């Protein structure tokens, strides 16, 4: 092949055997790589357009008035299009939740770790089963609380205890506690 590095061979001498990369090979690799980069640059926006758009990402925080929630009552509110359970635990429920050794749980957490200091009776958590995202029963009056007196997910039978900790069924984690803060004794801000 009459490439540049072979033209100045002395007449009659055989060209050296093919070895390593020729300059044309490098051009091939460079051209294909460049086309590959170009294709990737086109694919990225085509994939990324499906990620949450700006209006979905603009998530405000919400304030919730909890003054009307009596001991033993719970409410369901909506935040980021997901339900949030806010429950005022009774002293008996707090005691029962604290009796369970955290190390024996699938996702070890104490009630104190899931609540704010000094407000152990206020349990705020996302009402989204950590298995596949259904809303567990148990926050409303008369709903099935499951075998651990907490929450029971009807989709695949996950059972949570008073503190929203996973005790039985396929769910891997405790109910998620979102970022929240007490603005005053009767108002919490979620998010």
């Amino acid at each position, binding site marked *: 092949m009459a490439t540049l590095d072979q033209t100045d061979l002395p007449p009659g001498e055989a060209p050296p055997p093919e070895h390593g990369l020729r300059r044309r090979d490098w051009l091939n690799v460079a051209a294909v790589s460049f086309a590959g980069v170009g294709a990737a640059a086109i694919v990225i926006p085509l*994939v990324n357009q*499906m*990620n*949450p*758009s700006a209006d*979905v990402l603009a998530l405000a925080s919400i304030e919730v008035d909890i003054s009307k929630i009596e001991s033993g009552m719970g409410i*369901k509110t*909506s935040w*980021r*299009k*997901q*339900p949030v359970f806010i429950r005022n635990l009774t002293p008996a429920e707090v005691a029962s939740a604290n009796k369970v050794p955290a190390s024996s749980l*699938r996702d070890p957490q104490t009630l104190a770790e899931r609540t704010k200091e000094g407000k152990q009776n206020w349990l705020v958590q996302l*009402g*989204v089963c*950590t*298995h*596949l*995202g*259904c*809303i*567990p*029963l148990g926050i409303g009056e008369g709903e*099935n609380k499951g075998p651990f007196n907490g929450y029971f*997910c*009807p*989709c*695949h*039978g996950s059972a949570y205890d008073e503190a929203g900790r996973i005790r*039985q*069924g*396929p*769910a*891997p984690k405790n109910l998620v506690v979102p970022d929240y803060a007490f603005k005053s004794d009767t108002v919490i801000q979620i998010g």
Partner: protein
Amino acid sequence: MSFPWAAHYAPKHPLMRWLDERLPMPRLVYNAIGAGYPVPRNLNYFWNFGVLAGLALVIQIVTGVVLGMHYAANGGVAFDSVEKIMRDVNQGWFIRYAHANGASFFLAVVYIHIFRGLYYGSYKAPREMVWLIGVVIFLLMMATAFMGYVLPWGQMSFWGAQVITGFFSAIPVVGEPIRIWLLGGYAPDNDALNRFFSLHYLLPFVIAGCIILHIWALHIPGSNNPTGVDVKGPQDTVPFHPYYTAKDGFGVGVALLVFSLFLFFMPNALGHPDNYIPANPLSTPAHIVPEWYFLPFYAILKAFTGDFLWIPAKLWGVLAMFGSILLLFFLPWIDRSPVRSSNYRPLYKKFFWVLVVDVILLGYLGQAEPNWKTVLASQICAGYYFAHFLIILPIVSMIERPLPLPRSISESVLHGEDEESAPYGVADASHAGHGPAPQPAA
């Protein structure tokens, strides 16, 4: 490809000759489903279900495109737009019920089609590629049916979308970003509904493309048959047209009768009443179940309730559910028996029927309330499903002693049938009587 004795396309009309020299489309059709495609003469009615699946795809595409003219893919109005179709659009109720029941019809005939292939060894060499493309079509069908069910934006739509996109969150590290990417948000909402509409429109055309490959791959070796014995000569086949176009046409008529019974007299029998409740993101229905055609896989998903080997139960369930389908890709290499048809495999035949019962049981357990009895039963059934493919099949194909195979398809057809002992293409075979049928002339 076709057998050497296939009839040749010979256009008579000058226009057809003109066309044949420029774009031989009629020739293609003639060789694919016309007289130019010889088919084993002994196919039974289980060989109708491929055509029925094709018919179902056509019903779905036609009714689907029509519904798309009236449906609005927006969370605020989607449910109402479906009610508008039911009440205000001319014959809208008919088109919507045809589409909804059409999905059940499609999956029902495809399940029979799949079990036909399992029973008669239609996945074995040289038809592995037909089988592999078929499994791809099955996966695409399930994805399409899922996204279609989301569109009415009822309770089952919404929570089905939540749960099925939730499958992906079981994947370690990248799972949650994938789920959010699929939904375009943190929970199903407008953006999810919008893209599901777009993809629900797209995928049927991908399925149609795969079906072309499916048929193409089938026509290389030609159809399997109930004996599983290869075609040996012209006496084993009849031309597809008119013999099987007529038989398929009859099957289509019967199937449409059954379909019409559902469509006109019990259009909601296979649906879930909760999907007549508009989607409520703050309340999961107490008894949420998927569509019937997903139930066996759903039962496998639900069977995993405990962590095991450092893999959480949630990931186990999802892996098992997808694994139960992906396993089918390897079936041609799992079953090593050279005998195709179960009619000559006494041991495999028994396990085949146990598998059928197992899958039906899984379907029942998929919709049962989760308690210790149903969970234990679905664990046993799910375990058996995997054992069938991973343990029983390899052992059976090693130890089984098959029954003697007929020497040819025509021999099996003629066996003991005096009146019909004049096979097509063999002039000298009349009155063969009992016992071994005459050998093919060629």
